[in-house]
């Protein structure tokens, strides 16, 4: 054999692993779909459903939208949307403020590696707890209202933001703190002039990103009663009320796009 033919023989046979891998995935997907509980016949009616849906979507009840006429203001989509926004905004704000001390406790730079591990574990537990379950629990204590929503999002955000804040603190640039040392600054002055100017822009950026996500969560929390659009939406869905659902979905899309836009714009300015 020539040298090149020998090299060709030696070429790693990746295609075997690839084949096995693809095969495994196909099997897994087929298995997932083969669940006999799936009602494939329903798919046929999808077409007519779509038609009905689109028709009703177009027929929007303006009174319902604004909360005028026969509807009270609090029932209108406008109010509910703003309520959802409020839950997302205030929840994020509370979460961000409370996350700061927790992030200090989880940051190696501040409390050392061993204690930081403890703090981090605590934050992980809060984070893994699904928001809906947390909301279900808090509803018992605070009632089925927007307050529960704010608390749920706030608590959940402490976990999420706490971790990212701690990472920011750990990645901080130490050089300016060294200079402040040389100038004779004490601990508080070093925090005020060395640490805060560095981390506040990053923390704000992280918090804005979180706001985006939290507003979406807020729409969902309503489903179990924590205020916002969710409750009305579930009601409409179970009554097959496409026009109501359409109005709400439209509102959600607009709200999320707006928040997304503002959040992206501000985050770009912060960098």
């Amino acid at each position, binding site marked *: 054999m020539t040298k090149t033919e020998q090299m060709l023989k030696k070429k790693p046979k990746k295609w075997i692993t690839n084949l096995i891998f693809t095969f495994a*995935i196909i099997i*897994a*997907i087929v*298995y*997932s*779909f083969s*669940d006999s*509980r*799936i*009602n*494939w016949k*329903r*798919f046929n009616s*999808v077409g007519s*459903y779509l038609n009905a849906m689109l028709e009703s979507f177009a027929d929007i009840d303006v009174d319902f939208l604004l909360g005028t006429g026969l509807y009270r203001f*609090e029932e209108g989509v406008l*109010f509910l949307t*703003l*309520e959802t*926004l*409020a*839950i997302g*905004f*205030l929840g994020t*704000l509370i979460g961000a403020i409370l996350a700061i001390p927790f992030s200090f406790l989880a940051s190696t730079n501040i409390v050392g590696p061993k204690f930081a591990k403890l703090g981090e574990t605590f934050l992980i537990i809060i984070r*893994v*707890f*699904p928001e*809906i*379950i947390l909301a*279900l*629990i*808090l509803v*018992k*204590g*605070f*009632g*089925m*209202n*927007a*307050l529960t929503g*704010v608390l749920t999002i706030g608590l959940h955000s402490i976990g999420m933001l706490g971790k990212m804040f701690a990472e920011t603190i750990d990645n901080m640039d130490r050089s300016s703190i060294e200079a402040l040392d040389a100038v004779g600054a004490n601990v508080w002055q070093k925090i005020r002039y060395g640490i805060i100017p560095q981390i506040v822009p990053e923390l704000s950026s992280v918090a804005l990103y979180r706001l985006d996500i939290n507003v*979406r*969560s807020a*729409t*969902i929390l309503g*489903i*179990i009663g924590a*205020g916002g659009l969710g409750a009305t*939406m*579930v009601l409409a*869905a179970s009554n*097959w009320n496409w026009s109501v*659902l359409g109005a709400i*979905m439209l509102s*959600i*899309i607009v709200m*999320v*796009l707006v928040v*997304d836009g503002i959040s992206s714009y501000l985050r770009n300015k912060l960098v």
Partner: protein
Amino acid sequence: MVAHLNTTKYWVNDMTRFVLTNGKSITKPFNKIWIILGILIVLVVFFSYFIQYDPRYIVLSELSVLFEKLFTPRGTRTWSDYFAYMLTLKDPLISTLQMSFAGTIMGSILAIPVAIFAAKNIAKYPIIYVPMRFLMNLIRTIPALILALIAVMFVGIGVLPGIIAITIFTFGIMAKMLYEVIETIDMNSYEALESTGANKIQAFRYAVFPQIFPIYISYLVYIFEINVRSSAILGYVGTEGIGSVIKDNILYNYDRVGAAIIVMFVLILTIQFISNLIRRKLQ
């Protein structure tokens, strides 16, 4: 009134205008931080109006009662019943994993062509990539749970609506993350391939794909992790999974709800651990 305004002006000037000993003068620009703080306060006050609640409904002691109910066996059930129940949750658990897995993979695959056409450096004309991005943004605005709700309306309850919801959701996220990655890669090899006469698909397969594959898998694992979390909840609106267990039992059998929560917890932690491991190995 005018005199008052004038003194304010002098006070502000005093804070911001400096005259040095050599005669030069300089004005300090207005500190933007006050504006930001002001806006924040206005927003807080504005939004607080919408948080309406009846203080009579706040019974904090209910929380501790609830905690007890969640994590102790109810009525005549024993602790062994409690743990035995967890074993019966095996089926919903598998449903959850099935939904997440199938949905993630399909959504990720569907995302690939769309991401390619949304990347500025491959689809060079705005008329192609702008509508693609708009479509993606639209899909991304709808939370997974709502997608599931609508899917249930269309196809009934079961695993299928969950898979559909997760597919669409994954598609939205993956497409955006993917096109952002595609835009950051090194285009030199792509152009080189195009110059040898390869068409766009071939050029993509041999120049772009190898660069993004590890990142793609990393994103896939990350999204899978998110989806396991949300699919555990999707059951609440009618798909299968642990969420439906919770919904069924929330009224009377708190201890079962507690058991389900614990199982969910363990599941999510495990998946998170595994996914972190995989993603670190891919780095």
